[in-house]
């Protein structure tokens, strides 16, 4: 019973505040969609509207074939994991897990069996008699997850479920959540502000900012072809470098001029439109900007810069350098011996450049898709499994 979730022109307005603006988004059946964005971007409001805790001001929300705008949470057949877990503190783990089934009138034997099954899946079997206050953070998180799993709902909603865990546990639970999704294939909408969670867990990622959906794509697509400056800057760490540039031509082919160099846009690259006065914002990821000494001589372009900060990470180092008043971060090999205030040459492959409209912020560069679009990976196979 895989269900698709659709938002059609959904708005949520609180007084003078527009929390969500004209949201058009489909979560495919069986897909793990991560909604990511900075705080206040409307992602949690979106999730709460899907849960039925908020009513959309305009637009339609459908789960499967059913319009749910006016359906109360209890009849939506969704399950939610809260950031705070929201476990019932006066009930033990067993009763916490059983609550939803009992509310749906399941018989004692069925409840017992399903609680045992779910507890086994999550490794909670020995904790069934404990109260939430007697559990560790990770265990509480599992109970919260179990309470959602046990219901076998059409849709899972997760509101930053890992943000209260410490770093190690978070990595572990991330893998576990992915595993659970592989196993049960329930349509999932997962809200987070953590781009690592988004990149590692999502079949697709929806990036939101100031109430607007910015881009929805598979993680690699999002990373390689961000639709605008916001997405480009939000996804990826360290952050993408942005420097002002100007459109130009080199040997009759489109090029861009920035930081004193002129870079051709590369084979197959196409400008979708001209910009006002040819002004653009050039984006280049730190890992695409490297030390001249380690860059291939063929096909790269270099410019000089003065080293400002060196951040050794162990397996590599991030070097922040200043060129023509612009600060850029670049990736250096470890133990490069480069020192602060030293002049270095930074090299990049023009094929890795991103171009954005300096005023509107959206991308104006279209490149041939590299490696093939892996959109909604493995969802289709899952659907085939289901029908087989």
């Amino acid at each position, binding site marked *: 019973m895989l269900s698709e979730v659709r938002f059609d022109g959904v708005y949520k307005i609180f007084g003078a505040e527009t929390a969500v603006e004209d949201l058009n988004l489909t979560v495919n059946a069986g897909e793990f969609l991560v909604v990511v964005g900075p705080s206040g971007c409307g992602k949690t409001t979106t999730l709460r509207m899907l*849960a*039925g*805790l908020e009513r959309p001001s305009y637009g339609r929300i459908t789960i499967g074939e059913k319009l749910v705008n006016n359906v*109360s*949470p*209890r*009849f*939506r057949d*969704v*399950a*939610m994991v*809260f950031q*705070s*877990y*929201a*476990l*019932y*503190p*006066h009930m033990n783990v067993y009763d916490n897990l059983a*609550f*939803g089934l009992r*509310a*749906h009138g399941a018989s004692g034997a069925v409840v017992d069996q399903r609680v045992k099954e779910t507890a086994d899946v999550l490794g909670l079997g020995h904790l069934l008699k404990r*109260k*939430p*206050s*007697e*559990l560790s953070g990770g265990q*509480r998180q599992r109970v919260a997850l179990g*309470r959602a799993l046990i*219901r076998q709902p059409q849709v899972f*909603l997760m509101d930053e479920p890992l943000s*209260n865990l410490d770093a190690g546990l978070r990595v572990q639970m991330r893998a576990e959540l992915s595993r659970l999704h592989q196993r049960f294939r329930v349509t999932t909408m997962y809200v987070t502000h953590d781009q690592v969670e988004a990149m590692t867990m999502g079949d697709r990622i929806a990036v939101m900012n100031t109430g607007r959906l910015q881009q929805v794509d598979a993680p690699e697509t999002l990373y390689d072809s961000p639709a605008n400056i916001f997405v480009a800057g939000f996804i990826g760490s360290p952050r993408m470098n942005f420097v002002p540039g100007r459109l130009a031509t080199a040997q009759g082919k489109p090029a861009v001029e920035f930081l004193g160099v002129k870079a051709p846009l590369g084979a197959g690259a196409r400008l979708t439109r001209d910009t006002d006065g040819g002004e653009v914002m050039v984006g280049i990821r730190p890992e695409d900007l490297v030390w001249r000494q380690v860059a291939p001589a063929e096909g790269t372009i270099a410019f000089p810069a003065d080293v400002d900060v060196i951040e050794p990470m162990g397996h590599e180092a991030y070097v922040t350098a200043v060129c023509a008043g612009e600060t850029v971060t670049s990736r250096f090999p470890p133990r490069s011996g480069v020192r602060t205030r030293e002049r270095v040459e930074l090299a990049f492959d023009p094929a890795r450049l991103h171009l954005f409209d300096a005023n509107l912020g959206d991308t104006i560069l279209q490149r041939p898709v590299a490696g093939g679009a892996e959109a909604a990976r493995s969802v289709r196979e899952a659907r085939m499994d289901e029908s087989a």
Partner: protein
Amino acid sequence: MSAVAARRMTDKSLIVVPYRRVSISALATNGVLILLGSFFVLPLLWMLFASVDSNPDWAVKLPSLTLANFADVLDRPDAITSFRSSLILAGTTTVLTTVLALLAAYPLSRMHIPFRRSFMLAILFASGLPVSMLVVPVYQMYVYFGWLDSLYTTALFLAASSLPFAIWLMKNFIDAVPLELEHAAAIDGASTLRILRQVVLPLTVPGIAVTAIYTFINAWGAFIIPFVLTYSPENQPGPVEIYNFMGSHGLFKFGDLAVFSLLFSIPVIVLYLVMSRYFSGAFNFGGAVK
């Protein structure tokens, strides 16, 4: 060692070493506290001593032991009926107030009600008004309705007068129940009634206990309202009965008075002991959120 490090060490030792000495201000503080405390302890001591003294008077003195006072009081039928009256009066008041306060506090805590803040402030103000102010008009009203001299109608007014504070108290307890628990239960498929019964109510037990005890103790000790609204001897609750001990039976019987007061405080103490386990510890929100 650098100068800075050295100074940090000295500073630290200055902070860490605890040093107690008898100072004048400490003496003065404790003296005042003992004086204030004695104002509360002395009457209780008098009650204890006088109850078993064969020849009690105003003073607090070591008793010449006897149980005659107890026998005396237990022989008086009006003393026994006053207990019954007090139980009916305070019990009815407590049940009424607690149920109504719970029903009023929940929506006040959870729903968007226009002018909710002003309403809550009005309630707080009302809870501060002295009840004796209302006695005359209420008496007239009771005469009009023919409600005089009934413990249940008297309880009605006691409940009305304790309701504002009870609502205020209860609302704060319900505020403390995380709203997310209700959302979680709603998404889990629970009906509103189920959410209230299985999630909100169990978590509000401490609040209910506190409100109930507070109301009971107030109603148990209420004097002026039952004094005005009841008159037949079988409807006189304890505090009015104590007044009778002091006035209308000629000489003051200090021993009987002490015994009755002692017996009269037992239900409150028992109630407190029974309910105290609900106050804290047994119920808290540990593990609910975060």
